[in-house]
Structure formats: structure tokens, C-alpha cells
């Protein structure tokens, strides 16, 4: 494991991006940050700016207008970074798969490291997914970016 990745895992700062979700996944992400689930015990903090972030949390079905913004944000995040897709919409667009406004799923636009399914996923599922990601990197199996 490179030094950069090791430093990233100590305290991954997350940036939360909604690409046109119904807000349910966003509420669950917010739930993770509250004292009840408290992902700060894993060192995770919500970053206000993408330039401070190590992990990109993405919810929503990537519609035509937000794909442009998504790409712009992905260019700005410091590498190496990790991308987490949260919820059915960002995995496969869910019920919006035939929508005129959602042509391409998220993992065809940018590389995704962890998929957390559910509509919306429980906070426990989100935490489990992120912990799995951290373990995956520690074992050196994750994609290098």
C-alpha cells in the first residue's frame, strides 16, 4: 500500500454529491453522520469542498444536467480518491432506467469502488460498505487511481 493510500485511510473525508436523487439516500447519508450511527468513529468527516475530500459519495440517477457537474467534480477531487455509489439509482438507475433524462449509469461515467444497494440503503449498510472498502484497500485489492 502506498503512503498516499495509507494516509487517506486514517481519516477519509467524504464529499456528498446528489445527482438527481429523491433525497431519501441523502437523508440516510446524513443519518450516518449523526451521533446515533456516528461514522466519525472511523475518522470520516463531511467535507464542505470537493478539494478537501478523499471519498466521493454519490446518490441519484445521473441525469443529463448533473452528469456534466459530476465529471467536473471528479476532475477536482485530489487523487487517489475513492468513489462510493449509494442507492439503487446510482447503481443501475432503478426505476428511471428507461427515462429520457438518465441515459448512462454512474459506473460507465466514472470508476466506482463500492456499490451499496438499497432504496434507500440503511445507515448500517452504508457503514458496512465503507468498512469493506477500507479493508479492501488495506489488502491491496482496490483499483489504483
Amino acid at each position: 500500500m502506498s503512503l498516499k493510500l495509507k494516509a487517506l485511510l486514517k481519516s477519509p473525508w467524504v464529499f456528498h454529491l446528489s445527482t438527481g436523487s429523491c433525497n431519501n439516500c441523502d437523508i440516510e447519508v446524513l443519518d450516518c453522520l449523526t451521533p446515533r450511527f456516528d461514522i466519525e468513529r472511523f475518522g470520516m468527516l463531511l467535507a464542505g469542498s470537493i478539494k478537501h475530500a478523499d471519498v466521493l459519495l454519490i446518490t441519484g440517477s445521473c441525469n443529463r444536467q448533473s452528469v456534466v457537474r459530476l465529471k467536473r467534480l471528479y476532475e477536482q477531487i485530489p487523487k487517489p480518491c475513492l468513489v462510493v455509489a449509494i442507492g439503487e439509482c446510482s447503481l443501475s438507475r432503478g426505476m428511471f432506467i428507461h427515462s429520457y433524462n438518465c441515459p448512462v449509469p454512474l459506473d460507465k461515467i466514472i470508476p466506482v469502488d463500492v456499490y451499496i444497494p438499497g432504496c434507500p440503503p440503511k445507515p448500517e449498510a452504508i457503514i458496512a460498505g465503507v468498512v469493506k472498502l477500507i479493508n479492501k484497500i488495506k489488502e491491496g485489492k482496490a483499483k489504483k487511481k
Partner: protein
Amino acid sequence: MNRDDILKDINARFPLDIVDIFDKSPKRVYIEIKPVSLTRVAKYIFKDLGARFNTASGVDTRHYMEILYHFTIEDIGLLISLKVKLDKSKKLEIDSLAPIFEGANWIEREMHELLGINFKGHPDLRRLLLSDEWPEGVYPLRKDYKEWDKKAIRDRGV
């Protein structure tokens, strides 16, 4: 004015403009009018009856493009929906309500881009929601919409 007076008043003022009145429930009434008399009736409901313009909705049916303008008279809790039917075989055109009340501005822009209805006299009929790459003359909420994007992926990859 109570509910019955209002309906009677509308009936008496616009006998030639009204096609049909459907009294659905105590809180809701649908008034179908001719497209040419839309501005007159809407102006009366908005300015004289003091109704609030909620929103408008466009529906693509088999032979007609329907627009429903929803007005609420809050004092008596009545929702009036003005219904206009545009013949699909002719040009889809109707007078804009945006010069009368500003609230109609954006919803008319939205109906213009999603259903392709032309609003005559609208101050600024630009695009509102669709992205810039969207081609001209393709209206996604019409029944005969066909996929135009060759790059779109429509399977779940499993």
C-alpha cells in the same frame, strides 16, 4: 361570494366560451373552455375573483393536447381547473398567460420544451430544464417520443 355564486357568475359572463363544466366535488370544479377565450377567462378568475394561480399541467391524450390551469380561491377552498383542448392535427398554439401573471412564466417554458406547445406572447420562451445537448424538435413527454440518443444504455448489465 360563495361557491354557487361564483359558478353562476362564470356561467353568465362567458356563455359562449365555456364548453363544459364538470362539478367533481365540493372542493373541485373543471371548466373546459375554448382555446381562444383562455386569456379572458383566466384574467377574470385571477384578477376579479382573486384566485391564486397554482400551476398548469399539460397532458398528451389521443386526439388532443390538453392544458389544465389550476386556480385556487382560498377563502372558500375551491380549486378551479381551466381545461383547454388543442387539436393535435393543427398547430399547437395558445395565448400565453405570463403577461397577466408572472407565475405562469416558468411552467409555460416547461410545457413548451417537454410537450412542444407554443405560447404566443410569452416574454422569454427559452429552455428551462432540458440539457443543452438535447436536439431541437424532440419532445420527451409526448406519447410518440422515440429514443434519439444512440449512446444510451437501457439494460442493467446482468
